[in-house]
């Protein structure tokens, strides 16, 4: 009997179509797996009742000959997507108990395409983090273990999504990426993560972190699965004014396996000081694989790369400080108030009790860089440097079709590491942040193992709205790398 929790989306889709199993059977297998893996804390809430209901409806829909792109496929939804009637917390105490009266556009699209929701996946609070250690609902544990057997972080912020997919608790999951929050956890958990072009997926109904950067995308086991799922998530939405009015191509059709003659850029600025030798080697191996497949590999320069993190850690907190002003203890969420308190007292107590440390730090940094006297020196300056970074990519894409770089400077680290200094944690995003600032699509896929036996990912960055090239090159790299390792207990 096939292990139904070990399939790719494409395999499960085809198995359902052939009638090898039903969506209810597939969903039940995943509900059992969620229960068996509760120690990883990948879900904030499981929704087995809703899942079975959706699976039954899907089987009935299929029986009538009406099957969507993700018909009957059970997935995890990052708890940053508003889901109607189902608690949505953004992993924050301040939203504990919040049940949206509406459904986000991306989840609406997925459910209209037949997807089944298994539960709401854990994340860093308000998607601010690279380790999933800032969730009010506890740390997520990476299903992978190093040689010493210590519990490792799954990466972040979409850490619960990545762990769920890696451990067989969902066939795929939604993620969101503001500075690397899909790609870095995908790399740490040995799965595929795609951050689409800014504007490809609607942001409507996603709890906002930094609105000029936030973008939803798929987290899957294969590049083909990412193509399938992106097609079911994307599309123009009048409710998000930055959603691009462009057609959604057949992303799966882009996986031709042929990249002969394509030009792949290697940005020399990504060879940072202190880069671990195994990451350099991983990257060199990837370069060789693409060259062997007939691509032309050329050096490119992205001169402002070293300023990307600094730019990001001004722009993102600034936008966050504005977005998170809505948590006022009045309209939704937690309220803390004592007898005789003024309105300001209530705001200040509710927000102090409701937001965790990292969120408070970012709100305050954002408030500072936007405040009178500092706006030009920090915020406006960062926006100008952001344009320089954007222009660097535009120039590079004048000569190349895609860019290849590592996803992260290391493999997954132990829970508790990098917690002593906020800046140390930020350095995990060094390779993912530049593409975020430029709004470009980025795909991370596992291509090798570290000396500790942990997965390492490479990242492909593409031109705006050219996810197809990224997926095509990613498909070739995936075949060449033939990454088959699984976390202990998931082999098979």
């Amino acid at each position, binding site marked *: 009997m096939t292990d139904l929790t070990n399939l790719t989306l494409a395999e499960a889709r085809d198995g359902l179509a052939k009638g090898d199993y039903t969506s209810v059977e597939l969903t039940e297998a995943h509900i059992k797996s969620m229960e068996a893996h509760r120690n990883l804390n990948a879900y904030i809430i499981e929704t087995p009742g809703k899942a079975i209901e959706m699976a039954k409806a899907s089987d009935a829909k299929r029986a009538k000959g009406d099957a969507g792109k993700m018909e009957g496929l059970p997935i995890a939804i990052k708890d940053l997507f508003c889901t109607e009637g189902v608690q949505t917390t953004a992993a924050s105490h301040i939203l504990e108990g919040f049940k949206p009266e509406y459904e986000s556009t991306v989840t609406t699209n997925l459910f209209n395409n037949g997807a089944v929701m298994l539960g709401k996946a854990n994340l860093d609070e308000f998607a601010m983090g690279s380790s999933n250690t800032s969730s009010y609902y506890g740390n997520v544990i990476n299903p992978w273990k190093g040689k010493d057997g210590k519990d490792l972080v799954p990466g972040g912020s979409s850490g619960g999504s990545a762990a769920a997919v890696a451990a067989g608790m969902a066939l795929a999951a939604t993620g969101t990426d503001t500075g690397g929050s899909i790609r870095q956890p995908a790399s740490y958990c040995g799965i595929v993560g795609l951050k689409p072009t800014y504007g490809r997926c609607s942001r409507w109904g996603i709890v906002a972190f930094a609105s000029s950067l936030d973008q939803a995308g798929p987290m899957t086991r294969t590049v083909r699965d990412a193509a399938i799922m992106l097609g079911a998530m994307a599309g123009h939405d009048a409710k998000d004014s930055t959603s691009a009015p462009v057609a959604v191509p057949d992303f799966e059709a882009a996986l031709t396996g042929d990249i002969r003659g394509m030009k792949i850029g290697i940005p020399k600025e990504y060879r940072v000081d202190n880069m671990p030798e195994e990451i350099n080697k991983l990257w060199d191996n990837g370069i060789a694989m693409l060259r062997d497949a007939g691509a032309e590999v050329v050096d490119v320069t992205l001169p402002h790369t070293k300023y990307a993190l600094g730019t990001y850690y001004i722009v993102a907190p600034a936008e966050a400080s504005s977005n998170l002003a809505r948590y006022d*203890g009045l309209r939704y969420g937690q309220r803390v108030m004592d007898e005789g308190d003024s309105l300001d007292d209530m705001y200040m107590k509710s927000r102090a009790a409701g937001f965790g440390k990292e969120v408070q730090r970012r709100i305050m940094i954002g408030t500072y860089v936007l405040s009178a006297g500092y706006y030009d020196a920090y915020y406006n300056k960062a926006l100008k440097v952001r344009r320089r970074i954007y222009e660097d990519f535009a120039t590079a894409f004048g000569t190349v079709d895609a860019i290849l770089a590592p996803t992260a400077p290391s493999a997954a680290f132990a829970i508790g590491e990098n917690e002593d200094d906020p800046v140390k944690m930020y350095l995990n995003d060094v390779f993912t942040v530049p593409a975020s600032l430029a709004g470009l699509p980025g795909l991370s896929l596992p291509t090798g193992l570290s000396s500790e036996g942990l997965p390492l990912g490479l990242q492909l960055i593409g031109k705006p709205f050219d996810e197809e090239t990224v997926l095509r090159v990613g498909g070739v790299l995936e075949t060449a790398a033939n990454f088959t390792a699984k976390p202990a207990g998931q082999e098979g």
Partner: protein
Amino acid sequence: MSSLDKETVRRIAFLSRINVSEEGLGELAGDLTRILDFVEELQEVDVEGCDPLTSVADLTLPMRKDEVTDGNIQQKVLSNAPMTDAGCFVVPKVVE
């Protein structure tokens, strides 16, 4: 350049409407200073003649007709409020 003192942090915390304890102010001053030191390197970038990039979405914001598209959902709007009365959000007394 910028080492934040407690008074500055107190002001930022108030602007952010976040209550911070006395000892919390000291810790935050350290954390925020480290973050500001980290972003300090941006000052060396030449941005002469460079326009700020506020959005990468290559769009002019779309216009729509100014018309009512939904409404009559008072219960839904109030359903997550911590305190309501007579169909309204309840706030602490703001006018004496």
